[in-house]
């Protein structure tokens, strides 16, 4: 396959970026999208030119480190894929592909396609945990949990924290990300003790980090690689209101 790539190059968060065009040929449709960028970087290296910087690690869709907006879509053309799972067979010979970073005010560009997502870490720091320290836990089977509740908690807990929901949202809201963690912990009996504080702390931290408000368009759930459900956002709103009503 032959492809024309228009790639966002930007030195750092304070400089202006621009799209730069590169041509690649002799690509196999079985090559993954990130392997295509490896090929490009090898060609650049051989010419002594700096690599296109992009984030990636596990390359099997679970670590959440890869990002990229491909032809305007977070994680590329296939629904519920990560960029690393995207292969060139999803494109046609001769295509022009535009590659940009995940864009949001809360995700400053580090260089080129790499962005800083530590704002998401800080939301988890605000309350996305259960305060059970090593050594203090009861016997595991002393907390029976209905099979369906455990499965439902898993559905929320599956979030990989990639930030595609934010990159897709017209408001740059992280509502799906925040609600996934709130949903995971609120569904489980272990999460009940800190339930009220958690939702308030996390929602406040989300707003403090500069993420936008949710207007329920559902674009986030369409791109989420783990198919976290829009219902989690509804539940988060319920949890938030509930916490206001039942606070001590």
């Amino acid at each position, binding site marked *: 396959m032959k492809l024309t790539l228009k790639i966002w190059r930007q030195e750092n968060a304070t400089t202006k970026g621009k799209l730069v065009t590169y041509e690649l040929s002799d690509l*196999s449709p079985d*090559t*993954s999208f990130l*392997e295509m960028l*490896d*090929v490009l*970087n*090898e060609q*650049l*290296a*051989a*010419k*002594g*030119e*700096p*690599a296109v*910087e992009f984030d*990636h*690690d*596990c*390359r*099997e*869709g679970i*670590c*959440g*480190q890869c990002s990229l907006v491909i032809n305007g879509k977070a994680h590329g053309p*296939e629904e519920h*894929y990560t960029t690393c*799972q995207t*292969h060139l067979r999803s494109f046609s010979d001769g295509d022009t592909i535009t590659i940009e970073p995940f864009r949001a005010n809360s995700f400053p560009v*580090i260089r080129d396609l790499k962005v800083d997502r*530590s704002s998401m*870490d800080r939301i*988890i*720091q605000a309350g996305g*945990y*259960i*305060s*059970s*320290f*090593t*050594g*203090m*836990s*009861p016997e*595991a*089977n002393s*907390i*029976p949990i*209905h*099979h369906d509740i455990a*499965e439902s*908690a*898993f559905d929320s*807990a*599956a979030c990989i*924290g990639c930030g595609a929901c934010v990159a897709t949202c017209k408001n740059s809201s992280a509502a799906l990300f925040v609600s996934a963690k709130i949903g*995971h912990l609120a569904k489980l009996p*272990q*999460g009940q003790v800190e339930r009220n504080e958690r939702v308030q702390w996390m929602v406040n931290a989300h707003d403090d980090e500069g993420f936008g408000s949710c207007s329920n368009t559902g674009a986030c759930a369409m791109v989420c690689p783990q198919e976290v459900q829009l219902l989690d956002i509804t539940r988060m709103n319920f949890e938030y209101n509930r916490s206001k009503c039942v606070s001590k």
Partner: protein
Amino acid sequence: MALNAKIPEGPLKDKWQNYLAKTRIVNPANRKKLDIIVVGGGLAGGGAAASLAELGYNVKVFFFQDSARRSHSVAAQGGVNAAKNYKNDGDNVYRMFYDTIKGGDFRSREANVYRMAEVSADLIDHMVAQGVPFGREYGGYLSNRSFGGVLVSRTFYARGQSGQQLLLATYQAMMKQIKVGKLTQYNRHEILDIVIVNGKARGVIARNLNTGEIERHSAHAVVFGTGGFGKIFYLSTLAMNSNGSANWRAHKKGAYFANPSWTQIHPTALPQSGEHQSKLTLMSESLRNDGRIWVPKNKDEQRAPGEIPEEERDYYLERRYPAFGNLVPRDVASRAAKERMDAGHGVGALKNAVYLDFKTAIEKLGEDTIKERYGNLFTMYEKITAINAYKEPMKISPAAHFSMGGLWVDYELQTTIPGLFAVGEANFADHGANRLGANSLLQASVDGNFILPNTISNYLSDDIRTGPVSTDTPEFDEAEKDVKDQVAKLLAIKGTMPVDQIHRRLGKIMFKEVAMSRNEKGMIWAIEEIKKLRKEFWENAAIPGNENGPNSELEKAGRLADYLEIAELMAVDALDRKESCGAHFREDYQTAEGEAMRDDKNYMYSSAWEWQNGENWKLHKEPLEFTEVTPTVRSYK
């Protein structure tokens, strides 16, 4: 330096309790005077960081990812073992210990393995309390499944994302400690050297991967939870940025490296499909609970798998190992696959795969049950290969996976550098010559959460009067200079050969001669090839850009420079051990049936290698003494 494993007194089952009863601990009021650096934010490093911070120490944790939630523990699929005996199937601590010792082909340290089994149940309690959504039965109690090399069901799982769920619990515990101010995290930082002051590990030199700055950080002790170095094979199940550099730099400062050549080659990864491939995605071993492995009986079979009748299929694991069938340990399964592929029965375009077939299980249990058990794995498989594995068998192939070898540690998990500890895959002690499935998450987690926090206090109790460790010393000056010199040296090469291409060539040498099957001639050849490639790297590597700011090619080059040295030690280690054990299969030492032939008389030891200024390595032997088990020929027939 003579090796002292510091194994506590008493019968095996009492050793850990005896240790805890007698070890020195640090007064809670003094812990806040002590700083600990943890390298790695995965289950081992992250678990240690969170648990040490909970105890009241000041902890700094470093990792190269943008968030600790992305550490490669995240990718473990199948589950975590624990001797809970919830299934009433005869499991207990001793059985789990025995399975692990036997699985490791009697090449691990008895006391460490027993301790891992002993604290395994606590880990499940801990993880459930943290909110890990483990699979449940309809009555609400925890569910279990089986893994290779055992006859009981002791594996706890969260669909096919068990590692992710355990890691998120650990990550969340870390985030809580950051919030309360006991833990500081340094993301996108790579550790390039360890600083030794008066013979003790007192700090690290880190490179900030965002700015390129070289930073000094000091502490009273350093803990490595740096993972494995299987990426040395280039094609592996590891993450792209997983590396062996911190361990290697510590090795060059005096940490012995143990059993470096023992790499687990996982039998069920996706096969390579082309030259530009960067990664061999793992398909969890748990699939072997319900999937059956086979190849066509005919060589050069052209028919699609569904058209090959039952009697023309060779279910070779069931044929060769009727007792364990498809659930033989990984080393056995990988070698058996290699044997069939070498004999010309491989499937796929490159003839480099075998079938993993769910037809029987789907007929028996229904597609819904299979979907609930492995749904995400089937989805992942389809995303990568565009094949629906509910309809046709998966194609799988052996791939480099886990480093059983690593930094030599004593019972306290301390390396041969006082004050440097190693936890999880970074150390060597628990898995012997072959790791059992679902023991990796276990070892990483118990090392970090339950063992290290209880052993490091013995060391730190000498430091309660030391006061803060200064970074303004000649030792830090020198270490920082070494790191800066190396960065400058790499950038000065200005060659034409991209780093990944050199790495691929190294991977081919290693996978050919220092992987599943080894012989003397091949390894001597490999050592020469590695040396040539190392020379070529330093003369002709193409590393563009500069040291100020992000430079992924520079990062890769630094790691490859170390791999090119680790590779040689791996070959040296494999050459030295003239026996077969576990994953270390020497063609010149096998039984008539092609099984591994151990030599307990001459090789009942762990090899711990001491760096000697790049000239050669000095071998130290830690004898393995078995008091509770009698090493037998490992049979899964």
